[in-house]
Each structure stands twice: as C-alpha cells, then as structure tokens.
C-alpha cells in the first residue's frame, strides 16, 4: 500500500523537477530545501508507529506543500492529494469524501495549473482506491488462510488424539485378553501341575516301601494330567478364532476405515463357505481390497463402492466395483501391478474392467492347500 503511494509521489516529484529544469526558475536553495523537508516529513510519517504523531507529520507535509505553493512557482502542490488522502482515510473511508478533500487545495492553485492539478489528483485517487481495494482483499484472504490453517492444525491434532486413543484401546484389550489367558492357564493348568508334582514326590518317597500305594498315586496323577491336557486343548480351541471370523472382521474394518475417511459410501456382501478361505488367501483378499479402495479414492470420483465376496465351488471371488469415471484407457500403475503379482503368485487371476465404473476382481482357487 505504502509502496504504491511512495511510487506515485516519486513520479509526481520527477514531473516537478523536470518542470523546474525546463521552466528556468529562480530560488534554487529554497526549492531544494522545501523538497528535502517534504520528503523527510513523508519519510518520518511512514516510520512513526504512533497514530497521533503520524497524523501530525502528515498534516505538516500538507502545510509544507502549501508553503511551497505560496513561496515558489514550483508545482509541488500536485503532490498534495496523496498526503490529503492518507490523512483523510484515517478518519473516513468513503471515496466521495476523499474526492471533496482532494479538491479543496484547488483554491491555492494557480489558475494555469488547475487542469494539471485536477488530472493528477484524480489519477492519484484512482491509484489510491485501487491499491486500497487490493490490500483489503488480500488481508481478508490472509485472515481466512490463517483461520483455515488453525482449523487444519486443530483437526490434525484431534485425529492424532483419536489414533492414539484407538491404539490405547487396542493395547488395553490385548492386555485384558492376555490377562484372561494367564488366569485361565493358571486356573486349569497350574493347579493340575502343582497337585501332580506334590503327589509324585509322595509317590517317590514311598516307592520302595509301599509299592502298591505308590502305583495308585502315579495312576491318579496320570489321570489328572490327562484331564489337564484336555482342558488345555479346550481352552486353546475356544480362544483361537477361526480364520473366516478373523478375515471377515479385518475386511469389514478396512471398509469401515475407508468410509470413515471419505465421502464415498460402501456396501459389503458375501456368499458361500467362507471357512474354506485360507489365512494366506484372506491376506491377499484384504490387501487387494485396500489397494483397490485407495484407487477408488484417488481416481474414480465415485459416490459408491461395492465390495462383494463370493465363494463358489472351486473359486473365491472378491470384487471391488465403484460407480465412478472408469478408465477406458489406462496404464497399470504400481498398485494394480502389485495386486496382479500377489494374486497370480497364489494361483489366481486379477480381472480389471474399466467400463462403466471401475471394477477389480480377485479370483483365487478354492479348497486347495497353498
């Protein structure tokens, strides 16, 4: 803003100097003095921070210019509209008022100089208003930018906090699970083992003297150890989740995370015997689904994505289909190539269809040990 006004001043000052050189005028020392005093006054007004003193110096600039008009023939008065504008704008922001105030010094101006004065002050006003408009718009943008940045930071920190909370929850539930496990091992196995050890020690003591009794004790211990073994087996069976439960839950989690982080709606369905999908196959299906969803987010502009898992007689098929732009001609990127490799290494096929939305189908052989 200030730069614009200083620039305008410089142009007008140059004009005055040229006017002086061409005009053959007297009183060089006085003119130089006035120009110097004026420039220092303007400079000071820009340097000052205090609003009151700023106004004082601006007023003094105006006075100097008026003095100059009275004492010399130099048309330094042409500069006055800038100083008036700067001063008046502190009190009023209406451009019509500005116009009136810049017209006032016309009374001091020599009649021959009037057209020039009018032209200069109007130009100055226009430059001033344009610059002012720009600066206002800029400052508004800056402010919104700042508030956006603040909001962004806040959201990021909230997200971090959320992730942390989730990690904590996961950790806590793991701990709890471990605690349950420890308890159950202690209850079922610990007691049996401790009891068995005591009985066996007793049997050892009486082995030579009371053979029959020792034999009975050992038999007893054998029975209770067998029971213990059975109960360990039962525990393990109950706590180890089957592959299909783990798999389907992970797949759902992937989808939940996706719809949480995007505006795209997801739907999920499955048919057939999920229990014949092996752990490795689940991993491939889940990895491919993740990758396909990333692609949906990056390229599709879709509003809906449908994930379908079907187990047929000898096939496992997982399809991720969106209703977005599709891609009538496209080059396979890292993502699709990776999916393809993964799938083909497991004896499957990846079918990519990009007409009418984008669809990625992972086909894996079912019911084979891989």
């Amino acid at each position, binding site marked *: 803003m200030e730069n614009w006004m200083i620039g305008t001043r410089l142009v007008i000052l140059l004009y005055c100097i040229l006017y002086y050189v061409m005009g053959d005028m007297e009183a060089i020392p006085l003119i130089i003095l006035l120009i110097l005093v004026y420039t220092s006054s303007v400079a000071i007004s820009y340097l000052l921070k205090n609003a009151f003193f700023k106004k004082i110096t601006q007023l003094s600039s105006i006075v100097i210019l008026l003095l100059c008009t009275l004492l010399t023939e130099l048309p330094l008065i042409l500069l006055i509209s800038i100083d008036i504008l700067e001063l008046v704008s502190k009190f009023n922001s209406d451009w019509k008022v500005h116009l009136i105030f810049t017209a006032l010094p016309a009374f001091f101006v020599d009649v021959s100089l009037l057209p020039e004065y009018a032209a200069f002050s109007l130009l100055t006003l226009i430059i001033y208003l344009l610059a002012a408009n720009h600066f206002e718009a800029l400052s508004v943008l800056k402010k919104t930018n700042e508030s956006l940045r603040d909001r962004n930071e806040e959201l990021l920190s909230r997200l971090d906090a959320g992730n942390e909370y989730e990690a904590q929850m996961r950790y806590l539930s793991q701990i709890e699970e471990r605690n349950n496990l420890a308890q159950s091992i202690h209850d079922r196995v610990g007691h049996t083992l401790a009891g068995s050890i005591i009985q066996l020690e007793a049997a050892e003591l009486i082995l030579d003297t009371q053979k029959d009794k020792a034999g009975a004790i050992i038999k007893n211990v054998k029975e209770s150890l067998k029971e213990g073994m059975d109960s360990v087996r039962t525990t393990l069976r109950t706590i180890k989740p089957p592959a299909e439960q783990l798999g389907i839950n992970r797949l759902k989690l992937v989808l939940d995370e996706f719809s949480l982080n995007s505006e795209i709606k997801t739907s999920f369905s499955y048919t057939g015997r999920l229990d014949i999908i092996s752990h490795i196959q689940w991993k491939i299906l889940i990895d491919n689904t993740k990758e396909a969803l990333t692609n949906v987010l990056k390229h599709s502009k879709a509003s809906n994505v449908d994930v379908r898992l079907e187990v047929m007689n000898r096939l496992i098929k997982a*399809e991720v289909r969106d209703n977005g732009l599709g891609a009538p*001609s496209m080059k*396979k990127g890292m993502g699709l190539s990776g999916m393809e490799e993964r799938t083909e290494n497991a004896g499957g096929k990846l*079918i990519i*269809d990009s007409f009418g939305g984008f669809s990625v*189908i992972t086909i894996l052989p079912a019911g084979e040990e891989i």
Partner: protein
Amino acid sequence: MNIVRMDQVTKSFGDITAVDKMSLDIEEGEIFGLLGPNGAGKSTAINMITGLLHFDKGSISVLGSDVKKEKMKTKGYIGIVPQEVAIYEELTSLENVKFFASLYGLKGNELEAAALEALEFTGLSENAKKFPKTFSGGMKRRLNIACAIAHKPKLIIMDEPTVGIDPQSRNHILQSVKKLNEQGSTIIYTSHYMEEVEEICSRIAIMDHGKVIALGTCKELEDLISDRNIVLITVMDLLSGIKEDDIKQIPGVDAVEIEENIIKISSFREVSNMDKIINYFTSNGISIKSLESKMPDLEAVFLAMTGRKLRD
C-alpha cells in the same frame, strides 16, 4: 509335445493392452477353444501365433520352433481360417485352393490332388469350377477352410469361423473340425458362441481383457462355480402330497424347495439320479407337467467370474 507354447506374451496397442502376460500350452491332438467376449484378445493371440502380428514381450513357439526366429518354418505348420473370408472372387474354387496351397510350396500333380481333396473334404467338389461370387456365406467359409487345409497343416487355427452363416453350414463346419482333428490335426478354435465351444473342444481357455482367466475341460470349468445341477419339476396338482424329506433321501440330492406346484431340486452333478427322481414322482402317482435340468454352462462360468456376459 506342446504344439503351441506361449510364455508371458504381451501385446499393446497404444494405451490398450490387448494381450497381457498370456501363457498357454496347447498339446498335440487337441481341439483347443478360446472363448471370450469381443475384444478379449482372442484374435490378437491367434495373430501372434501365426506370425501376422509382432508382440512386445514374451515368447511363442510352434512345434518347438520360435515364431520370431524361424518364421517360415512355423508358418508352414499352420493353416489359418481367418475371421474375415479371404478368397479371390475372380478365381474359381479350385484355383483359389491351389493358389493358397502353392504358397506353402506344393507343386504340379501333388498340388492338384491336395486341392481336390480339400474341396472334397469341405463338400465343394461339385463347385470346383464355379466362381465364389455366386456362393452363399456358408460356402465361402467352407472354401476358406479348404484353402487353409490343403497343405495338410499340423495346426489349424480357426478364428470365429461360424460368424454370420446359416445353421446348416455351421453344422457342416463343426463336423469338419471334428473330422480334421480325428485325422491328426490340432485345432485352435476361437468363438464367442459358448455352445460351439462346449460341443467340440477338448480343452477351453476363457479369455477376458487379454488374460486367460480360466483353463480346463468344459466340465472342469463348470465345476469351478458349482458342483450341482438344479432340476425344476412342475407337477399338475398343487396338493400332490410331495414330501420334501422323501426327495432328500434320493442319493445325490442336496436341497429341495417346493413353491406351489414347482419343485426345485439341487443335486450333486457327480451322482446320476435323474431316473430315481422321476421314479419318485411316478411311483407316488404324481404326474409331471414339465421337467427342466439346469446345468451351469460356460456362459454362467464367465458371468460368475467377471459379472459380465459373453455377448452383449
């Protein structure tokens, strides 16, 4: 020995990958079917085997010879029946066959005999002196086949030879494919008519978007999606007293649904029990109005795998 071996063959046209890392082994004596929708890459694959089209990556060999390094040798093994009829209308049938056979080096009496034999085989002997201008679409196709087989190639490639012809010529062509195979030729047959492929092919590759997505005998392919048949029986009488549990007792029957007068029986394909099912109805005095057996066909296999139809 493998008559054709494709290893990781890729061919792109600009941004479109027509054939994508395709690997395929075709054994001697097969009628090998390439099935897929239009644009799946069947013709591209075939044109690369015959040397009409260069490929970007991978390798193809015919009877152990590389198609790039021993071009002339591999071309000699092959007879091609292209998708578009390629014959000279200004030449007679015999002249056409002789011309194409001479390209493979046949001469003189040998050439004449081979050409006549080929015309005989395709049922065109009587038309040997006639100009193909006057022929029907089916006859032109048969002449095209005669041109391809006169030099007795070990491998005959037929690219959609039955598109747009009458059922009779179509039958004739299918029969001659079988006969050629019996006489010792290996045949590669592409089509998007799954009925044809089901009827004549010993092994089938289903292609989609430049890839072989499934490979096997017709039964193996159908087995991919289901090991059951559905039998739909419509009976005359709504209140015929059919007992679901009784039907389930029939060996092989897996599930039964009764809806008004339609009984839907799902049964394992391995077990042949149709006579027992019918027997259940007749012995209980229930009269059958209609009976329909639904087996998964190759169309259903393609639909199940890709979610799309073979033909739009």
